[in-house]
Each structure stands twice: as C-alpha cells, then as structure tokens.
C-alpha cells in the first residue's frame, strides 16, 4: 500500500501540470509589437496613428496613382510623347477589373482597419500619470478623419456619385477589423459613416493640433501633414458638396475660411509648391524619400517630370486652352525644348530635397478649394455672394474679377486651380456632366465621349476582392 501511495503522488505531480498547461503554452512575441501591446498604451496608439498616414503616400494612393488617374480620365492630362505606357489604360478608360485601382482598394481598407483598431481600443487605453484623456481623443479624431477620407476616396472611385443614385452600390463600411465577407453598403450609408466620423473628429480634435504634434510627435517636419479639426471641417465641406447639401457645404467651408489660412497670391503662387505647410494648406500628404511607403521611381513628381523623370503624362490642349495668358498658374507647366507643343505640369510637383523630384507634398485640402466650394454652394442657394468667393481666387491668379459667375465659370476655375490634385473626374461625376474629349495625338484608344449616366463612372471592384469575397457584388457593366 505504501508503494501505491507513492505512485499516486508521482501521478498527481505529473498530471497536475495539465491544469497549468495553457499558461505554460502562452508565449507571446515579446519583441514584436503585438496588437494588444500597441493598442493598450497612449504611446503605442500614438505610433499606430502615425502609421495611418504612411498609407496615403503609397504609389497606389496619393503618392501617385490616385491624383494622376483622376486628372488623366478627366481630360486634364493625356499620355505624353514620352510615355512608356504607364497609366495608358486609365487614359483609355479601359476599366478591367483585373487591373484597375486594386492597389487603392487594398491601401484604403488597410487604413480603415488600422484606424478602426485605434478607435475601438481607445476606451480601454491605459494612461500613465500625466497623460490625458484629451490626448486619446485627439488620436481617435485623427483615426476617424483617416477612416472618413479612406471611405470617401473608395466611394468616389468605386461607386456612382451620391448626387446620381444615393441608394446604389457603395463600398463596404468597415468599422471593426475582422476577416469577413462583407457585402457592399449603399452610397448613402457610406456617406453617413463618413459624416459621422467627421462629426466626431471635429468634436474630438485638440484645439491646437500643432501644439499637440509638437508635444507628442517630436521630430515632426510638417504639422500640416497630420490632420486637424480644420482638416475635418474642410473634408466635411467637400463631402457635403458631393452630396449636393449646399447650405452645409457653405457652412463648413466658411469655418475653414475663417480659421486664419491665407490664399496664395499671384506673387507667391509658384512658391507654394515644393514647400512644407504653405499658407493655403489645411492638410497635405507629407512627401519624403524617408517615408515608409515612399513610391520611389513611381512617385508623382517623377512621373510628371519630362526631363530626367518618366514624363509619361502631360496636359491636354483642352486643359491648356482654359488659361488666359496672364494666369500665373501657367507657371506649373514645362515645355521642354525638344518637345515643343507639349506641356508637363511638373512645377506643381517640383520635389523638395530629392534631385529626382520624388519627394512631393500632395495637397489634399486647401483654402482655395473652400472658396470654390462656397462659391458653388452660394450659386446653388447658400447665402452669400458666389462672385466674391470666385473672384477671391481669380484676382489672386492674375485674372480679372467677373460679376455674375455661372456654374461653368466655377467648374473651369476648379479645373485650373485644383488641376493635377485629384479632383476633376469626380467633379464631372457629381455634377452629372458628360465628358467630351479629343484624341489629340493619336494615342487614345478609348472612348472620346463618356456620357452621364454611364456604368463607367464607377470603377469595377478589383478582381482579387471579387474572388475572395462571395458577398461582393460587381458594379453593373463589368
């Protein structure tokens, strides 16, 4: 019997370890920053918020493709004589689901999910003594701004405009990161999420974003490369305009106009490009060769640069015809000696420090756009003088003031002022305008007329998403 009890003891020791088995098997990666670790402290969450912005500069988004394609398709630019074929299919409006803007889809959802991680973890974040809830609120506001902008860019690209069919297929609204098979929300539902995020952001941003960044992001080169309450208001103004909610658009635009930014003048217009945080800028993507998602040889500046860069894309004659000779904005164009008659807008992306011009800030929200939004809103019923707003721009660009502007005047002004910044295609779409263009150099193999309405105004959902997600519905016509 003595022996038996000995066995029992051994047995219990041996098998008693089962109880602690799961602790014993818990071996998290202590040197990698696990989701849990990053999102449970203010410092980790701040780092994750910085990471959100790095997505924007990717070559599939603001770093190149998004603004380039917008202007190419919208007849501001064309495939140049130097073209090696880059973006040719976009110029042709060849919307093959296997090739069109799959990178934007991926990047934008990456930003949306990363932003959602921050937003959802914020209530449980651990604060060290001295760290304030308000700081966390500021991070949440930034994340909501990023999530709003990403959803907005997706819905602009992959869906019909809100002003046409608000209940048509939008994009999936994502607010929680999970491996799922979400179906598409309607365009209106996407806008609802965007507005809700922006409303929250406006309320949660710190009063003085620059001070916040100086304190918590020491080393920041350009505080306007991060978002702010003004940026959220400016984006809201644009969102309201895209909805046709003119009163609200005018209201948000006014808040930004009154916030202390200064319009470029005829004298300093050319200096604004290649400068960090110029006077009009509300929010821009900070360009640098040191950025994590630096597009390198695919950066927008290298693409638009005809001497030494690829120079694949230059301005259309139709676009150039919009300018009067006195317009200072003509200064952005370069006509190389050996390419007479062709104009590259490369002075808008002149680079900063890189000898190959591959480190450009990409303006996302700036004061001129606010004036133009308000002008358009006022023309459509919002209180105030549309002419005043339009002329505020015109007189500072070397043009005469006009007294009774039409929608066409504003449209053309937007086309000049915001050229190559990623607007024109969506202006056509939201205003329901048919796009007429010419094959100027025998390089266009696509359609010269894109009627409105047409299925072409919504790009196809990328094939990778269609194959992996059974609930994803393709846009009609593809």
């Amino acid at each position: 019997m003595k022996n038996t009890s000995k066995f029992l003891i051994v047995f219990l020791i041996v098998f008693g370890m089962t109880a602690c088995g799961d602790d014993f098997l818990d071996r998290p990666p202590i040197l990698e920053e696990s989701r849990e670790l990053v999102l449970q402290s203010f410092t980790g969450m701040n780092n994750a918020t910085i990471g959100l912005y790095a997505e924007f500069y990717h070559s599939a988004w603001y770093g190149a493709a998004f603004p380039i394609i917008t202007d190419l398709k919208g007849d501001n630019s064309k495939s140049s004589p130097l073209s090696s074929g880059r973006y040719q299919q976009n110029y042709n409006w060849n919307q093959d689901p296997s090739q069109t803007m799959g990178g934007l889809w991926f990047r934008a959802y990456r930003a949306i999910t990363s932003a959602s991680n921050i937003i959802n973890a914020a209530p449980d974040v651990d604060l060290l003594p001295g760290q304030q809830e308000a700081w966390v609120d500021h991070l949440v506001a930034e994340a909501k701004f990023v999530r709003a902008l990403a959803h907005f860019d997706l819905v602009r690209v992959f869906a019909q405009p809100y002003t046409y069919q608000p209940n048509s297929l939008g994009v999936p609204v994502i607010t929680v990161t999970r491996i799922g098979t979400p179906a598409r929300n309607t365009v209106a539902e996407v806008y609802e999420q965007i507005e809700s995020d922006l409303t929250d952001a406006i309320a949660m941003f710190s009063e003085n974003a620059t001070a916040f960044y100086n304190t918590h992001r020491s080393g920041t080169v350009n505080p306007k490369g991060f978002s702010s309450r003004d940026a959220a208001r400016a984006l809201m103004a644009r969102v309201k305009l895209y909805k046709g909610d003119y009163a609200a658009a005018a209201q948000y635009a006014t808040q930004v106009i009154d916030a202390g930014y200064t319009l470029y003048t005829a004298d300093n217009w050319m200096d604004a490009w290649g400068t960090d945080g110029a006077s009009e800028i509300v929010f821009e993507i900070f360009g640098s060769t040191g950025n994590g998602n630096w597009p390198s040889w695919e950066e927008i500046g290298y693409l638009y640069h005809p001497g030494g860069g690829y120079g694949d894309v230059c301005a259309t004659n139709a676009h150039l015809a919009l300018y009067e000779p006195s317009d200072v904005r003509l200064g952005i164009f370069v006509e190389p000696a050996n390419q007479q008659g062709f104009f590259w807008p490369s002075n808008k992306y002149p680079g900063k420090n890189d000898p190959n011009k591959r480190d450009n800030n990409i303006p996302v929200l700036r004061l001129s756009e606010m004036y133009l939004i308000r002008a358009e809103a006022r023309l459509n019923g919002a209180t105030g003088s549309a002419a005043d707003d339009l002329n505020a721009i015109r007189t500072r660009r070397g043009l005469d003031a006009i007294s009774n502007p039409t929608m066409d005047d504003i449209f053309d002004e937007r086309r000049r002022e915001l050229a190559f910044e990623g607007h024109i295609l969506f202006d056509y779409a939201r205003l329901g305008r048919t796009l007429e263009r010419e094959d100027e150099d025998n390089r266009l193999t696509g359609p010269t007329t894109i009627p409105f309405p047409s299925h072409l105004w919504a790009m196809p959902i990328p094939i990778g998403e269609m194959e992996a997600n059974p609930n994803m519905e393709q846009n009609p016509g593809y």
Partner: protein
Amino acid sequence: MKKFFIVCGFLLFLGSTLLGQQIRVTGTVTDASDGSTLPGVTVAVRGTTQGTVTDMDGRYEIAASSDAVLVFTFIGMATREVNVGGRSVIDVALQSDMVGLEEVVVVGYGVQRREAATGSVTVVGEQDLRNMPTASPERLLQGKVAGLQLNATTGQPGARSQVRIRGFSSINASSEPLYVVDGVPIVVGDFNVFTSTGNTLANLNPGDIESITVLKDAAAASVYGSRAANGVILITTKRGRAGQPARVNFRARTGFSERANDNDYRFMNAQEIYGYNRQAIINSGFDPETYGPIASGALFPGFYAGETMPTVYPAGHDRAGQPIETFDWEDAAFRQAQFREYEFNVSGGTENTSYFSSLNYTNQEGIMIATGLERISFRSNIDQRVGNMFKVGSNINASYSFMEDRPNQSMFFVNPFWASINLLPWHLPYNEDGSYNFTLPSNSNANFIAAADHDDQWERQYRVLGSVFGELTPIEGLTIRSQNSIELINGEGRRWWSPLGDRPGTESGTLQISNTRLERYTTTNTINYMTTVAGVHYLRALVGQEAFVHNWNYHYAYGTNIGLEIPHLNRATQEDSRVSYSFNEYSLMSFFGILDYNFDDRYFAQFSIRNDGNSRFGADNRWATFWSVGGSWNLHREQFMNDFDFVNMLKLRASYGINGNDGIGIYDQWGTYSSAGSAYNGITGVNPSRIPNSTLTWELNRTYNIGVDFALFRGLQGSLEYYHRSTEEMLLSRPISQTSGAASFRINIGELVNQGYEATLSYNTNVGDVNINLRGNAGRNNVEIIDLGGEEEIGDGFWRRFRVGGGYSDYYVYDWAGVNPANGQSLYFNEDGDLTPSYSQARRVFDGKMEPNIFGGFGWDVNWRGFGLTMFFEYKLGHYVYIMESRYTRSDGFNWGSNQNAQLLDYWKQPGDVVPNPRPMVNNSMGANEWGTSRFLERGDYLRFKDLTLSYSLPRNLLQNARIDNARVFFNAANLYTWHDVSYWDPERDVTGGGYIIFPLAKTFSFGVELGL
C-alpha cells in the same frame, strides 16, 4: 610523432593497470541443427570491442578476463552469451531459428526486440558510422537507410544537411525530421550568425554514437505526436555496462580533402578566354584593335596601346615580345585541406556503476581558403544503481567549436569561389611592389585574397546537452522514470571588414559581433509496466508526460570607422554604432501512452496516442491528439512453417496512424504591428504587420505502411515496404477579402501525397575464411500535390511551381531550343511550338522536378583474417538541378569582362554548325543566358563512390605481449569518385536543386589507427 609515442605509452600504462585477470579461452562453434562447425562466427567479449572470428574449422581463441561474458554472433543464428566462469575451453552450439530477432533496438520511449516491431524502423549501427570522416553525424546516414534522402547543402565542414524521410511533406511548414539524442529531442539547424557552418548536430562526436534508429512510419513515430510527421531520428550514445572491466580506446586519424572534379568542369585559360572575347568583339561588328574597352586597356593590359590585336594569343608573351604574367586564381581559392582527429574514450562498470567517457578533437579545414571547423567534444554517460529499486544516471555532452568562413554560397565578389571564376588570368593579385592589386575589373575590383588575409568571419559555439534521470522499479515489471534535460548553445561571432582587406584607400573598418544563446529544457516522465500472463500474453503499457520550453536570444552590435590598431567595438563612437536584440520562445506540453500486446511471439499489436499542446498555435486549435495502430504476424513461428527450414524469419506488418507537423513560424498565430513601412513626416509609427490567426493548426500526416521482413538461408535478410503518406490540412496562403486590411491569410487547406516502396537487402556468407557482407537499399518515392486550396499553381522561388497533379515542385522554365545552325543565335519555342529567337516570346514549360525518384546505397564488406575492405556507393536518380550562376558563367558574351566556363568554347562559328552554345557577342543581349531558361536545367542523377575503407587488425598473438587488446590501422577515401552529368564540380546540392556557387563536396583521404587496451 614523438608526442604520439608518449601518448601511446601512457595509454599502455593505463591499460595494463585497468585490465583484470586475463585468460585465454579457446573452443569450437557448431550449428545446433546438424552439428557442423561454423566458420566466421564473431566472438566478442561483452562490453568491449575485443573480438575475433572462428576459423575454417569453427575454432576460435580469445583473451578474456575470467569473469567475462563471451558473445557469439553469426548472421542467421541466434546470438548466444556465455559466462567464461574461469573456463579456458568453451564450445558453443548456435540455434538457427532466431535470426537476429533477439536484437534490441531503441524506439520511441523505450527499447523493443526487433521481432516485436510493428512499425517501420531502420537501425544504423556503429560499424556504419565509423569509417567516414565527418563533423556532422547525420551525414553518415546518407545512402544507408531506404527512404531517407539526405542532401548536403554544402561541402563545408560543419554545414547542415537536409533530411527527407519518405518524401516532402509540406510547402509552408518544415519537412525535416525530429532528432532525439538519448531520449531528449534536440534542436537542429544552423544558429550561427556569420557562418554557414553552425549545424548543431556537428557538436555531436560520431565516435560517441552506438546506433541511430530511424522511425519512418506512423506506428513507429506517432508517439512523438505533433513533431513526428517527417519521421524521427533517434541517436543513442555509448554507455558502459555493469561488471565490464575498464576499457580504453584511442583513435587517431589524419588526412586531407581536395575539390572533387570528376567531370573536368573548368573555366577558360588565358589563351582561351582571350580568343573567345576577341571573337565576341568581331561578332559584334567591331574591330578588335579599336574596340573601346581594349583601347582603354581595362580588360586586356598588354594588348592595346595602339597595337594590333593578335589573332592568336601568343602564349606567355604579348606582341612586343614582353612576357605576360598570368595567375591561377582557382588555385588561390581552393586548397588541399588538412584534416586531423583524435579520440580517446574509456568505459566500464562495477556491479552498481557503469560509465562511458570520451574526449574528441577534430580539426577539419575547408577546401576553400580561410574556412574550417575545429571542435573539442567531451561526453560522460554514467549509470548508478542505488539499492534494489532505484537507478540514477546522467548524460553530459559538452563541446566547443570554432568555425571560420568567408562570404559564401552566393555571388559575392569576395567569395573566393565566385571571384576565382570571374577573374581573368592576366589580372594579377599583387602589384609590383608586393601590395594587393585592387584594379581587378573582371571581379568588380575586389581582391578576395586580400579579404581572406585580413577580414574575419568566424563563430565560436559552446554547447552542452545534459540530462539526469532517475528510475524507480518498485515491483517487478513496473518502471517509473523521470528524465530532465537542458540543452544550451552559446555562440559568439565576429565579422570584421578590415581596411586592408578589400577597401583600398580607407583607413578604418567595419565590425559586427554577435552573441546568441539557445536554451531548451525538457522533462519527460513515464510509467511503464510490463507483464506476461500465462506465458503467452505479453503486455506493456506506458503512460507519460513531457513538457518542453525552447528559447533563443541574440545580441548584435555593429560599428563603423574602427581603426586597425584596436579592431574592437569599444573603438566605435556612439554615432557610428548600433545594437539590436532578438528573442523567441515556444513551448510544448504533451501526454502520451503506448500499449503493446503480443501473443506467443506470433501476433503483435501496438497502439500509441499523444495529446500535444503547442504555443505556436492559436488558442482555438492549440491542442490536438495523434495516434497510431500497428500489427504484425511472425509467420516463422507458426507450426505450418516448420517444413520450410530455409525460412529463418518471415514477418508481415501493417500500420496506420496520424501525426502532426508543428514546423511553422514560432509567432505565426499572433497579430502584430511593426515599424516597417510606417515612417512618415520625419517620425516613425507602426502599422499592422500580421493579422491574428487563432485558427492556425497542425498539418496532419496520415500514413499507411505495410511491410514484410524476412531472413532466409541463414544469410539473406531484408525487408520490403510500401507506404502511403498524405499530408492534410496543409498550410497555404489564401486570398481573403481586403476589407480585413490584409490580402492573404494562412489556413490549413492543402493536401499532398507521398507514396513509395522501399527495399533493403543484405547477404552475409563465408567463402573459406573470407567473410562477405553485401548490402543495399533503394527507396522510390512519388510525391503528388492533390489540392492547393483551390489554386492550380503556386510559385516556388526561382522558376519552379507547385501544381496540382505535379510532383512536389516542378521546374517551370523558358523553353530553350538550342542554337540556330544558320546564324548562331539562340532559339526558343513559343506558345505555338514554333521556333523564335526572342526570349520574351518563349513559352514556359514544366520540365523536370527537384526531388529524386529513386535513391539509396549499396556496398560490401569483405573480411579476411585481419584485413577488411569496405566499399559503399550512394545514388540519387530522377531529379533535376538548376545551375543558377550559369547565367553569368556561360553568358555568350553578356558577362563579357569576366572569365567564362570552358564549355562555351564549343560555340557557333559558321553557318551549319550544330553546337550547344551561341555565337558570342560583346554584352550579348540575344537572350541565350536569360533567367530561368531550360538551357541551364540539368539532370542531377549521380552515383557516388562514397566510402572506400581498407583496414588491417593486427594479429592478436602479436599484441598479447604488449597487453594490447586490439590494434587496427585503416585508410579511407570518402567521395572517391562520382559519376554525374552536372555542370559543376560536384552534383550534390540542397533539396531545392538551385543555389548560387555551392560550396562543393570534397574528396577526403585519411589514414588512422585504433588501439584498444
């Protein structure tokens, strides 16, 4: 030499004091069935290596202590052990019906009689492990085990090997087996930072190994559960035996290695490359006399300066009659590498204590300059009985190795192999004043001799594998055992780029140092009960628990601008240095059981089960259960077989089981953030780098095995097996909805199948007093991918693809069609099967696979009196290799400016030439040397004369006066000759068949002596 005698003298002295009372025993050995005498029976003194063989008349004579035990073994006969008991004449009759069946083999968590095996188990004994000089014991298995494919990844001493037992089981998880040394699962792989010689198995002295057991099927391996999918290799080291007189063995061996080159693989000499390049200039439409590079003198010093370029290279002289110096760069890169090994061990035991201790020193240079391995290893295995019920013991293995290396296995310009291939013969290593020449345009101005002379690249490794165990036997048949072990590897590395080495004009160098530590703790606790009921029901039950933690950490420091005077990191300033730290850890918790039953030694059944929890897997799938069943039937023990006298053994067996593969990344299940790609606006953030994967789980292997083992005519033995092994729930990356923030995700969805046959045969016979032992094996494996998770094909690195219905991985190459006889241009087949000169039009075709169909080995041992001759051959058939650097070394002028392979001399010269190589052109862009063309895909088949050993054991009567037990001298030639068609010095490379500038396997010739006292 003087030292050697002193050592021998010391050993003699030691031996004479340790030996007990020796007497001479004589006798005759007969066959019990007919009384005939048996020549060639091995007679050994148990617990020693002392032994002799019976003569023509079955007589023997041996010296043994009066209390010794004699062991009589003969193929086809049951082994018998007889106590000497003071007798001087001992006659023995051997029974023929128990052919080696009583032999006990080491299996998972225990030992087993060979006759009782139900699974597929192959044992490689000491005699197969002692001939070949190698630092890494696993290499001794090559060709010895049917179904075990071993590829030496390089010929560098101490480099790791790749082992595939019964094929390739996985795409994204490991296909390597589990290694267990004396019951402790050990870490394998290369943990060095700066050298590729850090094979952890190279710390194990092959001379310490008693046997290696290879567990191939589920019945044998499943008790190792989640780590058993790729088979298990059990290494058992030598132990002393209770009551055995102390015995001392000494062994010394020395020799040298040389680069193998049995195919006359070579690069052009000065005259050849000169003429070839000149032709390339002409073919390109230039005039050799005015062509730019020549005029500038960069490539052809001695031939420009306005001179006409001679049509033929005037051997040794330029046109002006000045002698031209050339240099043999290959000779400077390769060398005759020296090899030395000394080993000393002592073993023995008293009634309660037994011990084995050994000390080994090995120094093996690599055939490339400035590479090599030096190792000192020590072992002590001790068993101590305490009272009647308790036994304790320890196994300690400690080793130190120093490994030296050069930039290697890739196209580095300071890699001596690559550089010596590139460099043109008239580019000289030294300037006239004796300084290094750094104007070497044919090798990007790198001088590998300077680098080898002045740079450091080495690693020191200290390793301890120690375990203690206690065993309690409270009642007959019941054993409670606990074994606890620690494995510790500490590595220190240094890489120093001296300003003298390869950086002319600089005054300071760059230094990197590292410190790694790996720790593993394992506890294994088992309760084993054996009983026999009514004489015919044998039962064994074992339950056990095992827990294990592995952790590794690594410190790295880097500094630049370090002066030559004190080339250490304390000289680096804060601005010029950085440090980093890595760490990983995983753990395993297991519960297992084995149940063995046999009825009357005729019917056997075996069942095993194991429940494993592994920290690598997500919380949802962390625990899993693996199991196996096996059965066997010993036909030779049945009544109805009594009439078949010639059948000594006939056994049928079958097994089925499921085991797992945990060989995935340690942290694959965890969601993480990383700063990579997250810098923005002058500061660095973080972004998600991996999404959490809580469903990640083991790949499963489902294995059937059937086999037959036989022994016939008292000399012929063998086994035949068939297996079918399917890998299920194979981990593959699957595209997912990108609304998750990621594009793909690893899930367990794929499937592949390995099936094959294995045959092992041996035959032992005596012709007069010549004993002949023939042996051979062959494994045929066929692997087929069944399911890639819905995909038809997935890329696999360079120019190979996994495809459903294909082999493991098939080459997918541009279809080269040879040289156009009309114009000397290269041709490809296009999609329509028509010829095209354009590489970009070429179709891609599946052509050849990386895994061999059939592989194995064969050989023989012949012994006559004291002389022994062993010859052993190893082969692999049916696979392809891709010689990746051929793009540069057979470039038809593309890599103009560097030396080229001599194969190119057979190039197109005039219309109508049907030749393998195109017309050379300067900076050729005709596309014959493009990436991934079938031109450089070659059959990897080879037959290697792996082992030639000649030995002579001195006659015992000569030794007796000197009180020496046994003295043997031997000569070994390893890799003596290889038959192959591969365009490289040696055909063997890693299992992928690719790689750049593989460090080739060497031929090694060595000579040694063994003394037993």
